[in-house]
């Protein structure tokens, strides 16, 4: 009898630790395995390519998602904010507006999306999941209505401002702008969540909203700000995406939705106290990107690639939930 008890207690700590350190270790193992199997994997060109093409925008959207997850919800309309930000930005560029002003329009489109979510969630008390799902559908129609049923909007080659190319392809100190933006937004969001009064209030709302209410926190205002911030950050990804391809591509943003949810929850499982956090989210995005890229390079059938992502999520969550179960 005592044996069983001892056994359980000894298991308890490592189980939690397996989850925390398991994913970074898994990341390293995946990298090692892929670089052994695919010679092109661990090259500067490939790694940079993955970081710029597969990580940067996904990471920005995932940061946006993490804000909503930290407040105890989900923002299914992050992709919509990406698209509307992109559409507003490209439309303004096409109309001959300077890049800075076009960027502001893009950001405002994101903020508008966020305000709509805030209205539904904070004012009408609709569950974030359903509210943002509604916004997702409405945003889809909005794009169809404004682009003749969902046609891409290209900036004519002769009207592409030089500044747009810099925004889309420029680099500072050899690091592409998109990655700088990930760094800035990531550090900013982390400081916001961990070091500010607002971040603490978000944590309280996300952990136990009734306690936040009974402690006198302005819960509606907090939720409204979170969803506006989430959509604004996602719109930045949309602006960057358009600058990269000189076009608005309909519904492109939704490609980031599921990965961002997966990354945010992987990040939560990684943290010691199971809280949504920015570094964990980014690690999740990086892991997704390299698994996909590695599978591509080793010649996995393209159609099978999402199986890799799925297995990744399963194994993380299995570990994460095995932890507390072993505790009991």
């Amino acid at each position: 009898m005592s044996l069983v008890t001892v056994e359980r207690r000894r298991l308890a700590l490592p189980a939690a630790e397996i989850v925390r350190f398991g994913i970074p270790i898994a990341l390293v193992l995946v990298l090692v395995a892929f670089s052994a199997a695919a010679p092109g994997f661990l090259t500067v060109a490939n790694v940079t390519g993955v970081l710029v093409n597969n990580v940067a925008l996904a990471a920005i959207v995932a940061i946006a998602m993490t804000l909503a997850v930290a407040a105890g919800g989900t923002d299914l309309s992050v992709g919509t904010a990406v698209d509307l930000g992109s559409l507003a930005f490209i439309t303004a560029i096409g109309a001959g507006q300077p890049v800075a002003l076009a960027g502001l329009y893009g950001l405002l489109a994101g903020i508008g999306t966020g305000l709509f979510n805030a209205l539904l969630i904070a004012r009408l008390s609709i569950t974030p999941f359903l509210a943002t799902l509604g916004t997702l559908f409405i945003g889809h129609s909005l794009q169809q209505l404004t682009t003749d049923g969902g046609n891409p909007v290209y900036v004519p080659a002769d009207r592409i401002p030089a500044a747009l190319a810099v925004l889309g392809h420029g680099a500072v100190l050899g690091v592409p702008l998109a990655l700088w933006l990930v760094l800035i937004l990531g550090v900013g969001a982390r400081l916001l969540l961990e070091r500010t009064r607002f971040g603490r209030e978000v944590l309280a709302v996300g952990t136990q909203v009734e306690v936040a209410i009974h402690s006198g926190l302005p819960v509606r205002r907090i939720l409204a700000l979170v969803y506006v911030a989430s959509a604004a950050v996602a719109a930045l990804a949309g602006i960057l995406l358009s600058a990269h391809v000189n076009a608005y591509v309909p519904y492109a943003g939704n490609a980031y939705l599921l990965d961002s949810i997966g990354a945010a929850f992987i990040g939560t499982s990684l943290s010691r106290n199971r809280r949504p956090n920015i570094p964990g989210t980014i690690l999740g995005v990086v892991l997704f990107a390299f698994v996909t890229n590695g599978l591509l390079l080793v010649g996995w059938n393209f159609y099978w690639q999402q199986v890799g992502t799925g297995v990744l999520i399963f194994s993380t969550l299995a570990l994460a939930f095995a932890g507390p179960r072993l505790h009991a």
Partner: protein
Amino acid sequence: MAAADPTRTPPPDPPPALAMRDLVVTFGPTRALDGAALTVAPGTIHGLIGQNGAGKSTLIKVLAGLVTPEAGTVALHGTPIAGITPGRVEELGIAFIHQERLLVPTATVGEALFLGREAAGSRFGYLSGGLQKRAEAAIARFFGIRLPRNALIRDLTIAQQQIVQITRALLAEPKIVVFDEPTAALAKREAEHLFAAIARLKANGLTTLYISHYLAEIERHCDAVTVMRNGRDVAEVDPRRTSTAALTRLMVGRDVSDLFPRHRAEPGAPVLALAGVSVPPALRDVSFVLRRGEVLGLTGLLGSGAKELVQALFGLAPIKAGTVTVDGRVAHVANPHDAVRRGLALVPENRRAHGVALDLGIRENLTLASLDRVSRRGWLDRVRERAQALRLIGDLQIKAAGPEAPVRTLSGGNQQKVVLGKWLAREAGLYILDEPTIGVDIAAKAEIYRLIAGLAEGGAGILLLSTDLDELLGICDRVLVLYRGAIVSEHPAAGTTAESLLNATLTGDGPGAEASRAA
């Protein structure tokens, strides 16, 4: 059923319904059970008392198969039982009614009662429509009351949820029922119904193990009582022949003097005044004045409107008529955020759902209502925050591994101190306390009472909603009784007996119905 003399060990035949011997359970460095024993004669109501941490819960967890003891034996009706698991408990004929309500919040009352037992009420796999009717009949049978029709569990008050949970357990027709503080949330009348139900079932041979902090209940209803302290059973006594003081002494190992400290504050300026306040349909035309330095009690049965009054004052329910004046200014409190800004503080009844964020640390909980004081221009001042948390932990004597320990890991009493500490950090002017000592052991209770007295002496006004009459008379200056949505009487604590107060809550009769308005 032969009447066994429960005070003698070992008991005569028939064999005890439950015999636990020499149990040892350790959690890390602490010995939760250190050779504890418990013998319950069949067909009796057996009380189990002790402070928090005395080992009562661990003993019950052993019986429920949730904790495996390192040593010791358990026998039911003379048969040794090895390796109890939670799955076998029902088949062994044991039912548990826990302090924490383990019901699905979105189920209807009927579903909650019969969930997992649908076979009994289903035809061809469909739930029969009579579920709700059968649920009503069952609740009426055991408690003599009626719950709101078609209500979901989450819409019910804690007391109502408890009633559903107890009914569910009794429907399984167990041989032994273990109550873990069932009446903590129940108003007197529901508690009386519960005891009447237990007495009826006892006549049919049911054995009851009853854990409670309410010594009065134990004395009135139990045939025998086991007192635990420091992981051992220290005594088994006949509660009818043992005084409350003696029981308390056995629990703490010493005398608890002045459980109810009297504050020495003079009433100051009015901090809260209500004039003709109505919260339909629960409450109508309520008027009273609470002064700084005063502890004002508020009591009433379930449905008296006392709960709704507290909710409305804190902005959790809309006030439809009348005026509320806080610190001399008319206050339209629209939501709790408003309430807190006006200097109100609420210690809610449902501590674990509304009072503390269980997964946050003690520090994070303690500063949750006073983040403005530990931050500068929106940035948290982590040094100051930690200092404030440590000061409160020291002042309130919160027992925990450290300021970062999740509140989930604390005992009920310490969790309640965290809730109080959260408001102390704000230096609120008006404390609304809703059943502040529910599920709190006697030593922590005394500390909370001392704290309340200290708040009054510091110039705060205290509005104490409670169904514990001794508590009301012990620490309040006066007590208002609500009955069916109106204040029916006011009782100065001095010279009022628990009996007369109980009578007022039950019947709505009593002196000074007008005095409260004039005050």
